[in-house]
């Protein structure tokens, strides 16, 4: 996967509208939404449109009737952006990232928890690096946003926005038909990816207790690898394209290095519990 030319960050999403084939003739990965071979992929969601992804070229979008720019942008910021990066040899995690003292703190495991905690950290002065898709590259690893993405905004549901003291009107709808909104929070993000300082898997109480009973804690590389795969975008595409060895090479340093940690999420995300959680994760970095 790494032979494809690296893309440089751009200010706006690199996409254009145009016709997109209904199918790839020799797809090695075929699922309900994604067809992929080693050089291209098509993401298709009937109510939003079809997206033709070819690394090094703009993504071609054929919007569905009735789909708006926000619908299209939502997919470009999420699954399509992650697919594009995956084909270009970069691995993507489902989660969020913030910059703390020039290094990246990555949060995965619970999308609601990751976005909300990232916003809480951003409100404390730590710039938001990425939300939804965190791109991991290099060795030692760096973490950052999608290179072709717009400046990162955090997607929050109303309860999380309230807990953070954000007014719903300050956000922009993720999609017109969804209650979640995107917010600009915290200081501006630094340009480009940052060295990965810590990767935190957020778990609810019961999941954490089960892990303890099974002995899969932060100290076990196997448990870390499973956790990474569970939080990886398009893991089945990676597998079907035959890139498991590249994936293993990517994941092993992360699994064997100290920056891997588990953190238990409180049952209710309130202003107070978020504050305590933010302090706990910052202690892991400082």
């Amino acid at each position: 996967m790494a032979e494809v030319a690296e893309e440089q960050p751009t200010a706006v999403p690199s996409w254009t509208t145009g016709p997109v084939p209904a199918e790839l003739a020799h797809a090695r990965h075929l699922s309900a939404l994604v067809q992929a071979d080693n050089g291209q992929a098509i993401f298709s969601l009937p109510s939003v449109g079809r997206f033709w992804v070819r690394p090094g070229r703009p993504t071609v979008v054929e919007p569905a009737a009735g789909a708006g720019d926000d619908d299209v942008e939502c997919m470009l910021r999420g699954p399509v952006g992650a697919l594009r990066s995956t084909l270009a040899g970069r691995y993507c995690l489902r989660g969020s990232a913030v910059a703390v003292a020039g290094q990246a703190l990555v949060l995965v495991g619970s999308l609601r928890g990751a976005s909300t905690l990232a916003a809480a950290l951003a409100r404390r002065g730590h710039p938001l690096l990425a939300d939804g898709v965190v791109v991991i590259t290099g060795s030692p690893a760096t973490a950052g946003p999608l290179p072709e993405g717009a400046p990162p905004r955090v997607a929050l549901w109303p309860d999380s926005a309230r807990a953070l003291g954000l007014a719903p009107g300050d956000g922009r709808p993720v999609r017109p038909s969804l209650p979640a909104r995107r917010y600009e929070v915290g200081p501006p993000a630094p340009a480009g990816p940052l060295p990965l300082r810590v990767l935190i898997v957020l778990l609810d109480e019961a999941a954490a207790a089960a892990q303890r009973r099974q002995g899969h804690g932060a100290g076990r590389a196997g448990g870390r690898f499973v956790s990474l795969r569970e939080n990886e975008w398009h893991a089945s595409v990676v597998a079907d394209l035959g890139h498991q060895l590249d994936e293993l090479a990517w994941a092993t340093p992360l699994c064997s290095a100290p920056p891997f940690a588990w953190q238990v999420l409180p049952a209710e995300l309130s202003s107070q519990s978020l504050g305590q959680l933010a302090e706990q994760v910052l202690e892991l970095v400082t």
Partner: protein
Amino acid sequence: MSLDPAQGDLVPARMVWAASYPKSGNTWLRAVYTAAVTGAGPDINQLADGDIESSRAMFDRSLGVRSSDLTHEETWALRPAADEMRTAQLRGMPWTKVHDALRMGPGGRTVVSVTATHGAVYLLRDPRDVAVSLSYHLGVSLPQAVEVLRSQSVLMSSQDRLTPQLPQYLGTWSEHVTSWVDHDMFPVCVLRYEDCLADPAACFARALATGGVMLGPEDVAKAVERSSLASLQDQERRSGFREAARGTFFRRGKAGAWREELPTDLARQVEADHRQVMQRFGYL
């Protein structure tokens, strides 16, 4: 070319749905199944074979999408495809919990994939007891719980918070029952919760056989014993239960407890709302 497991071909799994209206004994059923296939006492937070069908995390991983970016209609339409992606990566006949009514989604397919299905065990319980249990579980009044049973209810459909599960269409209690028992798309073993309490070994032996788990009477009895309500309650006290929305999940579990807890007018309301199905299954 067809796949032949005898020749070493890897044949995708086909699901066994542990299906029920909420608070009808589904966790107990899966606890017995877990005890049966592991030969050990079940961990209520790690029941075989994994999460509920409507789990967001599972859906997202299966399809390479983020369900929080999708509308209810889009997730409903895509759930059968997610089932098929999951079964393609599994083997055998994994059991999976489901609370949805078995209805057509917006994509013209049933909410769970029929092609990914081996069969189902459908557990139903006296709706008067369900109403009482549901009021505790959801933290609503008894009249509100009775209203849930008679309404076109949708679970996990919050517009305020991101729920860990996708929205699940229940319909009314009566519609839920008939959706699962009155079709010929795949075999369904129908069990009454009350019969399971009265003769657990016989009932669960039928359920396990439907799901491809063939055990002798002694092994079934052991699995039932290891999954007693007392042992599940004890685990919840010691370690908590991830499915407990508030308070205690495993409460009384007794058949007919509605006589002590449900006011007469509400009991009559439930009977009026669901008379036909209640009569059919011996509740009236």
